[in-house]
C-alpha cells in the first residue's frame, strides 16, 4: 500500500431545508405516508411544467458563500436523460453546464496542519423518488421526488480516507450551521460518494477511477476509502488491471462490493432545460441571502476562545447548535462567557437532556440568564445554590432575585447573619485563629470549612472569605 499514492475526490448530495420541493409546491417532508406528498408535477404527469422555488436559490447562494465558491449570476438548468423507475420524467433536472457555485474550498486541519479541500463546483438539482425492493417487486414512493438537492463536488485533491472524513465532518458542520440542510446521513438528507484512484508516482497521470456510492456514514467513508485503497494496491501489486467501475461499501463485510463496470460511459444526453428560462441573480438577491447567513462555526470558535472558553467547551457548544445560538445572543454584552458556557454545558444541558427539551422551550429569558451568570460569576450564588434553584429558573416566570428570595438563599448572603456565624466559628476555634495569625494559610481554609458547615453550604464563599479575613485581621 505504501507503494502507491492515493487520489480521493468526494461528491456529496445534501437535501435543502425548504418548505416545498424545488420544482413544485408540494411539501418537502420526511417520514410521511407513502405518496402523500406529491402533486401532478412531481409525478411527471403529461402537460405539467416545473416552477422554481426561490428558497432553493437562496440556500444555494448561502451554501456557495460558505464553501468560498464563486457565484454564477446567469445560469440555466439542464436535463439529464436516463430511464429509471425512481425518476418520474425519465430525466432529472440538474445544472450540468452552469453550476451556481464553482472554484471554492473548505479548510480542514490534518495532523495539526491546515489544508484546503478544493470544491470544483456545486449545483442544484432534484432528488429522485424512493424505491424499496420487496422480492420480485420494487415499490415506489414519490414523496422524495423533487426534493431540492445541492451536489458538491471536490477536486481530486485528498489523499486518504482520514482526509475525506475530516472534509465531510467540516462540510456537515458548515451546512448545518448555514441552515442549509439537516445533514442527517441516516435519513438520507446527506449522501456521500467517493472516487478513489492510485498511482505509483505523483508525476504519473491519475490511475483508474473507482466510484464508491451511497456510503451510509462519515466513518464508513473513511473505512470504505481505506479498504478500497488496500484492494486496488493488491491488484496493482499483482499487475492486475481493472476497469473504471462503481462499487458500494458493505459495512458488515467491511469491504467494497462491485455494482457495475462502466462500459462506454453513461450517455445522459444532457441539453438545456427548455421549460426554465435563464435564472439571473441580481446583486440584491445575493447580498440579502448572504446577510441572512447565521454565524459559522469557525467564527464562533474564535469568539468563544477569545472570551475565555476553553477549546473543549467551545467545540461542545458548537456541536450543540441551539446552545451556541443562545449564547450568541450575549456577544454584545459583558457576560462572563466562561461561566456562561459552564452553566449551559453543565446544569442546563443536564436539565434539557433529562426533560427532553430545547432551551427555547424553557422560561429562561435573556435577562434572567444574564443575571444568573452574573450572580454565579461574582459568587453571589454558589454552584450548590445554582443546582437548587435551576428548575425554578427554567420553569417559572420569576426573576432570579425573586427565586433567590423564595428559596431563602438571600438569608445566607445577608452579611449580618454571616457575621454572627463567623464570630461564633472564630470563638470556637482559637487554635486555628492563632495558626492563621502565625501565617499558616491552611488554618483559613479550615475556618472557611467550618463556616460553610454551619451554613450548610449555602453561604456566599466570597462574602465569607471577606468577612472572615476582616474579623481575623482586627
Amino acid at each position: 500500500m505504501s507503494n502507491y499514492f492515493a487520489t480521493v475526490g468526494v461528491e456529496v448530495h445534501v437535501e435543502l431545508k425548504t418548505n416545498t420541493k424545488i420544482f413544485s409546491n408540494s411539501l418537502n417532508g420526511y417520514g410521511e405516508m407513502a405518496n402523500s406528498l406529491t402533486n401532478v408535477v412531481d409525478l411527471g404527469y403529461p402537460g405539467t411544467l416545473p416552477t422554481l422555488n426561490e428558497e432553493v436559490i437562496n440556500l444555494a447562494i448561502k451554501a456557495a458563500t460558505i464553501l468560498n465558491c464563486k457565484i454564477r449570476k446567469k445560469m440555466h438548468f439542464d436535463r439529464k436523460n436516463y430511464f429509471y423507475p425512481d425518476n418520474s420524467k425519465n430525466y432529472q433536472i440538474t445544472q450540468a453546464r452552469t453550476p451556481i457555485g464553482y472554484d471554492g474550498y473548505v479548510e480542514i486541519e490534518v495532523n495539526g496542519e491546515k489544508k484546503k479541500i478544493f470544491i470544483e463546483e456545486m449545483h442544484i438539482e432534484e432528488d429522485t423518488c424512493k424505491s424499496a425492493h420487496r422480492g420480485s417487486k420494487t415499490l415506489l414512493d414519490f414523496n422524495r421526488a423533487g426534493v431540492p438537492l445541492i451536489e458538491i463536488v471536490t477536486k481530486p485533491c485528498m489523499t486518504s480516507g482520514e482526509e475525506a472524513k475530516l472534509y465531510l465532518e467540516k462540510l456537515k458542520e458548515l451546512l448545518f450551521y448555514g441552515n442549509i440542510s439537516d445533514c442527517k446521513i441516516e435519513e438520507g438528507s446527506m449522501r456521500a460518494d467517493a472516487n478513489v484512484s492510485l498511482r505509483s508516482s505523483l508525476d504519473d497521470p491519475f490511475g483508474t477511477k473507482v466510484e464508491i456510492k451511497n456510503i451510509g456514514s462519515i466513518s464508513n467513508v473513511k473505512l470504505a476509502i481505506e479498504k478500497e485503497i488496500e484492494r486496488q494496491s493488491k491488484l496493482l501489486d499483482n499487475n492486475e488491471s481493472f476497469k473504471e467501475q462503481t462499487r458500494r461499501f458493505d459495512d458488515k463485510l467491511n469491504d467494497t462490493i462491485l455494482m457495475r463496470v462502466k462500459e462506454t460511459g453513461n450517455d445522459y444526453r444532457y441539453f438545456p432545460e427548455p421549460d426554465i428560462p435563464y435564472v439571473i441573480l441580481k446583486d440584491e438577491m445575493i447580498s440579502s441571502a448572504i446577510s441572512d447567513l447565521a454565524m459559522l462555526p469557525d467564527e464562533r470558535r474564535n469568539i468563544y476562545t477569545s472570551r475565555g472558553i476553553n477549546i473543549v467547551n467551545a467545540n461542545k457548544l458548537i456541536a450543540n447548535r441551539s446552545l451556541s445560538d443562545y449564547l450568541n445572543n450575549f456577544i454584545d454584552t459583558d457576560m462572563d462567557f466562561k461561566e456562561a458556557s459552564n452553566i449551559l454545558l453543565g446544569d442546563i444541558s443536564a436539565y434539557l437532556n433529562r426533560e427532553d427539551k430545547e432551551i427555547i422551550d424553557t422560561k429562561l429569558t435573556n435577562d434572567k440568564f444574564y443575571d444568573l451568570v452574573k450572580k454565579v460569576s461574582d459568587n453571589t450564588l454558589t454552584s450548590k445554590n445554582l443546582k437548587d434553584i435551576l428548575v425554578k429558573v427554567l420553569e417559572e416566570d420569576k426573576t432570579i432575585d425573586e427565586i433567590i428570595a423564595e428559596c431563602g438563599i438571600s438569608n445566607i448572603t445577608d452579611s449580618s447573619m454571616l457575621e454572627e456565624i463567623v464570630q461564633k466559628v472564630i470563638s470556637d476555634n482559637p487554635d486555628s485563629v492563632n495558626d492563621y495569625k502565625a501565617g499558616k494559610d491552611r488554618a483559613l481554609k479550615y475556618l472557611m470549612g467550618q463556616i460553610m458547615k454551619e451554613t450548610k453550604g449555602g453561604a456566599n464563599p466570597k462574602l465569607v472569605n471577606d468577612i472572615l479575613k476582616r474579623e481575623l485581621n482586627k
Partner: protein
Amino acid sequence: MKYLSLKIEEINKLLKEKKITPVDLVEEAFENIDSNKELNAYITLNKEEALRKARELEDREVDNILFGLPIALKDNIITKGLRTTCASHILDNFIPIYDATVVEKLKAKNMIIIGKANMDEFAMGSSSRTSYFGAPKNPWNKEKISGGSSGGPATTVAARDVLFALGSDTGGSVRQPSSYTGIVGMKPTYGRVSRYGLVAFASSLDQIGTMTKNVYENALLLNAIVGKDEKDLTSANKEEEDFTRLIGKDIKGMKIAVPNFFMSDIVNNEIRDKVKEVIKVLENNGATVEFVDIKYIDNTVTLYQIIAMGEASSNLARFDGIRYGLSKENPKDIDDVYYKTRAEGFGEEVKRRIMVGSYLLSGENAKIYYNKALSIRDDMRKEFINVFKDYDLIIGPTTTTTAYNLDDPMDDPKKSFMDDVLVIPVNMAGLPGLNIPIGFDSNNMPIGMQIIGNAFEEAEIYHLASFIEKELNLKLDPKGGENNE
C-alpha cells in the same frame, strides 16, 4: 334554426334575451358533429358533461361574449375527467386529474368543451394521418387531408360544427391545417399563452393557438386565453389587451415585408399568384410591400428537426408504463415494461422522431447538432427582429401546396417536415403568425396566406388579416353557406 351560423354578437344577444339557451347551442353543435361524423374530427366527445354544463348555465347571467359557446380542444390539451389521448395508443385510456391553464380560462368564461379533436399522434406530423384513431378528412374534399397536426380542430371549425377550437403549433400545426381547410388560425407569440397542461412535444417551440372561421372571433378567443401563468416559467409577463382593437382599421402607410424565400419556386404557382394578387390589393390600399432576404430562413427545417426531435425524445420519455397510461401486461422485468410498452404504445412517426432525437443528443452529438442549432436559432431570431425594425409585418404563403390526398404515400420521413417549410421559421423565432384564407386553387381547395408579426404584436396581425378578409370577402363555408363575418 342554425344559431351557430349567426354572427357572434347576435348569438350573444339571443342568449342575453333568453331567446335561446346554451343547451340549444350545445345540441346544435352535437347535431353538426353527428352529421359530419365521417370527417373523423373528434377522438372523444364530451356530450353528457357539455349538456350538464349548458343546463347549469341556463340560469346564469350572460357576462361575456363567449358565454355558453361550444369549443373543441385538440386532444393534447389536458382536461380534468375527460380522456386526453394525444391521438396515441399509449394514452388511449388516460383520464387526467387536472385542467390545463387554458381550460381553466375557458371555463371561467363559461365556454363549453364539446370534445377532444383529432390530431397527429403527439402532434408529430403534418397531415393528422399519424393519429391512432385514423385521419380526419378535409370538409372541402373528403379525399384530402385536413393537414396537421391540428387536423381535427381545423376540420370541425371548417365544417362549421362549432365556432371555436384550440390547437397547438410547434412547427406550423395551427396555421398549416388552417390553410388547408380555409379557416383563420393564429399561433401567438411564444409565452403569450400558458403551456401548462399542453402535452409537450418540443417545449421551446410549442404554443397553443386559436382556430376560428373568421378574424374577429379568433381575436376574441385569444383575448380569453392569454396571460402570465405562475405555473409556466416560459409564459410572458404581459398586460391583458384587446386583440380586436385594430380590426377594421385601414392599412394606409403599413410597411410589409415578403421574404424572397417565401415566393421562391418551392411554392406552387397557383399559390404564388394568389399571394401576388393580395399584395396588389394591399398596395392599392396604401400599404408598402417590399421583398427582403432573411438569413437562415432556408435552414429552419434543419434547425427544427434537431431541436424538435431532440426535445421530443426527452419529453416523451415519461410515457413508460409506470405511473399512468398503457403498460405491457405481465412484464418479466423492468426493461419489458419500458421496451414493450413504448414499442406497442407509440406509432411509427413518433418512434422515428424519438430515436433520431435520442441520437442527436447522444454523446458528442449534443454539441455538434443540438447546441449548434440553438446557437443558429438565436441568430435567426435576431435576423427577424431586424426585419421588424423596418417593417410592421411579414407576409407570404402559408403552405407550398394545397391539401393533398389522404392516400398519398407516407413512406418519406422528410415529407412531414417539408410540408411545414414556410411555417416553421415563425416557431423558431418565437413570433406570432396567422393563417388567413385568400382563395382557392383550380381544384377548389383553400389557399392560405401567413401574416407574421413582431413579438407580442398579435393585434397588428389581426389588423391586416381583418382587412384582407373584408376585401376578399370569400365564400368559406364548404357546404356553401353564407358568410357572416
